[in-house]
């Protein structure tokens, strides 16, 4: 979380910092939905007796800072000095999309700070800490909320849009928007599809011809391959898109199902209700009736 700087005029406890020899600070998060509100329980662990003591004496405090990029929600809540557990509730609609939780250790008063666990560079040095200074942070944990129902309907994974620069013979292209996967096409193609959508029997054709290939392509791009040592290989497509609503929606649909690389086309068909068979049936029925006329 870009809550705070990465350079501090005093030793800083964080996973990216080497200012302490052994101290560790982290937390776990449990989440459930109660009557539409999100109930979240945070529990932290702190491995440093000196810092634990300063927290008990109320010289330091532990706070959670949580912020949502979708609604500009930013809030802080303090842990009680004698508790490593905190419950918070987020009302439906306050957050949507990625909501990031971080824990901070904050000075509640001015004091001179020394710790036997400081790295050798800082041993025997006393640092003047001011009230409000952040002296440590945990790694972040992200939750994803989906309250985006501005149109009153369940949000679509795909939309079609018109690109006026495209001609009917041009290939439609996929644009990965923030909320949706957009299939951009010429105005003529768009109008023809809109006309087809009004005929319920023709909808599987649209799914089979446009959406299945687009989803299969996307699934293939989302695949995080493993290297020889079993560690995931950096995937720039995932890095660029994992915060987006459609990415989360696909992950929600996939759930715990096995992801088989190379099987994306079949997966896409299953996710979209296997539209190929009814499409072929419709074509067959109408081509036969055409022959008979």
């Amino acid at each position, binding site marked *: 979380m870009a809550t*705070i*700087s990465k350079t*501090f*005029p005093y030793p800083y406890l964080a996973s990216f910092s080497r200012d302490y020899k052994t101290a560790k600070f982290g937390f776990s998060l449990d989440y459930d939905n109660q009557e539409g509100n999100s109930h979240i329980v945070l529990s932290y662990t702190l491995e440093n007796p000196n810092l634990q003591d300063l927290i008990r004496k109320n010289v330091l*405090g532990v*706070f959670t*800072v949580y912020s949502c*990029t*979708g*609604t*500009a*929600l*930013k809030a*802080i809540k303090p842990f009680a000095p004698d508790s490593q557990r905190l419950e918070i509730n987020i009302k*439906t*609609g*306050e*957050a*949507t*999309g990625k909501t990031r939780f971080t824990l*901070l250790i*904050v000075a*509640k008063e001015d004091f001179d700070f020394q710790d036997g666990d400081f790295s050798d560079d800082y041993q025997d040095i006393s640092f003047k800490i*001011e*009230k*409000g*200074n*952040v002296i440590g942070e945990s790694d972040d944990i992200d939750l994803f909320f989906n*309250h*985006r129902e*501005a*149109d*009153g309907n369940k949000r*679509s994974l795909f*939309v*079609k*849009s*018109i*690109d*006026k*620069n495209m001609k009917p013979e041009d290939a439609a292209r996929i*644009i990965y*928007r*923030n*909320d*949706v996967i*957009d299939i*951009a096409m010429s105005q003529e193609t*768009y109008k023809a599809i*809109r006309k087809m959508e009004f005929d319920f029997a023709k909808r599987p054709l649209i799914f089979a011809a446009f959406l299945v290939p687009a989803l299969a392509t996307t699934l293939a791009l989302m695949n995080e391959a493993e290297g020889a040592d079993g560690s995931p290989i950096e995937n720039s497509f995932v890095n660029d898109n994992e915060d987006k609503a459609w990415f989360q929606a696909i992950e929600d649909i996939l759930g715990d199902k096995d992801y088989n690389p190379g099987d994306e086309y079949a997966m896409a068909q299953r996710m979209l209700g296997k539209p190929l068979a009814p499409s072929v049936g419709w074509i067959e029925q109408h081509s036969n009736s055409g022959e008979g006329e």
Partner: protein
Amino acid sequence: MMEHCIPLMTREALETAKTNRNEIYEFIKNNPNSSKWASDYFGEDYLRPSTYKLDLSFDTKIEDPILSDIENSEVIYSAFSPLDPYLIYDEQFLVSVLFSIGYKYVNKRWADALKKPTAINHYFFPDNTNARRGVAGHAIGRLYLRAKMSIDPSIQDETRYSRMKKAYSIPALMDTLGWHPYADNQEVSFAFFDTVIKWVEKNQAFPTKEAIRALAVKLSMILGISLGEFLGKDELERRLSDYFQICNEKFPRVNPRKIILEEDVFKPADMEQMDIFDSKGANQQ
């Protein structure tokens, strides 16, 4: 004011508009008073009924941009406050409000800025890769955000708008703070606004934008290592005030105009007072 049932622009129309921005810009430029062209372009059903009702109408006279912004911010704040935040930060909602109610207002208020085609990228269509930044730049969204940064919701009478009116009338103040995410916390934004407002009241002159930007940098430095929400408004203001005096000494206004406060809005004083003031110089007050 009139209560409007806000129709929502379809997602497909929105994406089509964003894909064809140059063409949309031409339509907007050629039709500043009415969005009827959009029905022909996107299709008759590009706006669909919704259940969202807003008590909302815009001041479209815009004789004075500052007074217009103040009035419209009050209106938007009152109309949007009962809504869930996720809706206010939703680009589909903001664009729908603009096309259905705010179209004429936005074209008139931002007529100069909209001479550049790229201006529709944020005034009309918010950047949806970062919801807060999108709202901060959007012609309707910014009215809400600036009100939210400066209105104390715990005050119920008209004085709740006092800080907002003063902040709007100090050049560069809203523009500087409006883009900063840390302004979402009112302990922080109130401290920043009040530091500048108190300096203006004491010195009866406007600071330069460089001085205000330098103060914003100082605030970033404080919040870079401290938890501003925990420090609270008074402590933050204490830490900012002395520094702002230094900022104004470093970036003095060359020809300061004396200003007076009328109905919570800072305005240039009359010519006679200005001459007296100029002969003394702003920093000798």
